[in-house]
């Protein structure tokens, strides 16, 4: 097998003195959708942020497309076409949707802006209808779509998505997962997905990782993980029962 697009080796990260990642190993191959699931506070988002350089990994290495990015700053990493739709969407509320998308294309070649815009808007027609509206006036689902669309404007090689279904109605969440699947199938976009919604995430993903307390405890294909009793118990339908007693 060829070398992975993103490889994380023995990464440890801290918030002050609190250790959030305790030595994480993880690989993402070209063209894959990889899901990372785990409970609240397991360190999923921290891992995603660490890949983007904030906080920096204190130990271990992160390699993207053959380049060591462990010590690079966030904007330098973004310029290597590693795009992120951060947790909480973080769109620019007072700027228009079009301006948001334009900012997404900061690192991209300006010549390709128009074609890129058309491509992205075709994927999210609801965003296309609101181009001149302020980002802050969009609904939660539309804001999430805008956040993904904005990340796509840089024509990324790897897209990091942090909790794309958070706080969304199931129907909207499904639209977003469908869009991710379309992107992957049609353009071969590599996606790394952090999700609370383990069921949807694992059904979508080719491969998945389970994170507990800053460590990867399980990995395998999405389907495999869905069948694993520990996963079922902790993150799927059994979770609520176990928590009850």
């Amino acid at each position, binding site marked *: 097998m060829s070398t992975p697009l993103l490889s994380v080796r023995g990464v440890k990260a801290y918030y002050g003195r609190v250790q959030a990642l305790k030595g994480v190993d993880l690989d993402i191959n070209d063209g894959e959708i990889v899901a990372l699931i785990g409970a609240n506070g397991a360190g999923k988002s921290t891992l995603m942020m660490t890949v983007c350089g904030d906080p920096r990994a204190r130990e271990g290495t992160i390699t993207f497309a053959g380049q060591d990015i462990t010590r690079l700053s966030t904007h330098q990493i*973004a310029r290597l076409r590693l795009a992120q739709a951060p947790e909480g969407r973080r769109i*620019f509320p007072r700027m228009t949707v079009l301006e948001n998308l334009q900012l997404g294309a900061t690192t991209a070649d300006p010549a390709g802006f128009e074609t890129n815009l058309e491509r992205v808007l075709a994927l999210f027609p609801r965003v296309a209808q609101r181009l*001149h509206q302020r980002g802050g006036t969009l609904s939660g689902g539309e804001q999430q779509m805008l956040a993904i669309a904005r990340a796509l404007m840089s024509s990324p090689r790897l897209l990091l998505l942090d909790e794309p279904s958070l706080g969304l109605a199931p129907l909207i969440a499904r639209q977003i997962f469908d869009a991710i699947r379309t992107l992957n199938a049609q353009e071969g976009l590599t996606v790394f997905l952090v999700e609370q919604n383990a069921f949807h995430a694992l059904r979508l993903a080719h491969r998945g990782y389970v994170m507990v307390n800053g460590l990867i405890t399980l990995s395998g294909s999405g389907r495999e993980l869905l069948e694993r009793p520990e996963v079922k118990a902790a993150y799927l339908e059994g979770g609520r029962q176990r928590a009850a007693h």
Partner: protein
Amino acid sequence: MTVLANSAGKGGRVEEGAIARDRNRFVAAATDASLTALIAFGLFLPLIGFETVQNINEVLVLRTRWPFLFSLVAIIGAGRLAYVLVVPPWLARRAARPIAAEPPAWRVAVARWFVPCAIGFVVAYPLMVAWALGLRGSLKWIDNFGIQILIYVMLGWGLNIVVGLAGLLDLGYVAFYAVGAYSYALLATHFGLAFWILLPLAGILASFWGILLGFPVLRLRGDYLAIVTLAFGEIIRMVLINWVALTNGYAGISGIPRPSFFGIPFNADDNGFAAVFGLPFSPIYRTIFLYYIIMALALLTCFVTVRLRRLPVGRAWEALREDEIACRSLGINTTNTKLTAFAMGAMFAGFAGSFFAARQSFISPESFTFLESATILSIVVLGGMGSQLGVAIAAIVMIGGTEITRQLDFLKEIFGPTFDPTQYRMLIVGFAMVVIMVWRPRGLITTRAPSVYLKVRKTIAADLVKEGRG
């Protein structure tokens, strides 16, 4: 017949109901007003009701001022009554009015023609005033109102880059104004360099200090940034006061050369401006010339800002104001973005500062106190952060307002010769600020023109976004 009687009875009931409602409303308002008057009485009884005076034996005695106290309480009560009766019904009527889908034609016309007309007015202003009031009488109006306001318009626009666009709350902006002023003053008096050479140099030096301030505060935002910039402004002022060998301390620098008209000085000599152009000598020519310099500088500031907003750097400033983390994740170098914002803002303050020094011909640290920073910042906030037009209007209201209170000598006729209207200046300005902030909490102009359009041009009103966002 019965139908008629019925409808008449119904109408009568409705009318009775309306009268009863009006009476209730009036009773409620009167109760409210009497309570307000009572509170005012309680507050003012010790503050205004009594006065200590020295009698002939130089002993303090207590004197009462009942008429003054009661008239004040009556005014407050009546004012409250009028307010309660008028304002809430008016607000209710306004809320009930349907919002028109299309703005009326006159508003569209105003929006289209306001800025060209305003620029035309600003260009024609000194000539109009000179023509209307004569050379001697117009000096005050061109200098105190024209130049003074334009300096603050320019400073407001400069600070608008830092605060309004990049969202970096800067309470020490006056420091860069001081750097510009002292750069010009020192270089001109020591090396005899001309205004037009020193103007860009002062701008460059100020922007250098802007970057110098920018580095240590890169990680700060909001309140923390405000405190550090405030301290920076004070440090610059303290250096100006205490480095006597360079700056001459409190005494300041005097005899700063004034700008000349393409090498022709504005004086009464044979080769002075008036003589060369065959005009009778008057100091007004220099003032008009200075007016046009600051007008050009202010317009330059505005033009550059408007252009930059459409370029990647301007867009990055606004994105930085909205969300710093999102900026970084999109590949924007936030360090450079912040530093360019500080440098640009400081550069325009430096220009304004060197102009200020050239206009006054005398500068001292007293011109660069925190109050100046606060005034400039309140111009930006009152105008509506990020809005060029709003900042200009706010500068006219704030600075023009303070200047007008200096002209209210006629009030002495009403309140007696001891009444000094300038003492009430800050009170009136403060009151005006409170009123503007109640009336328009996000500043005078809250619409933000998008920097990029696809096919259709549209502006978006601030009230479409939740209050306090961004």
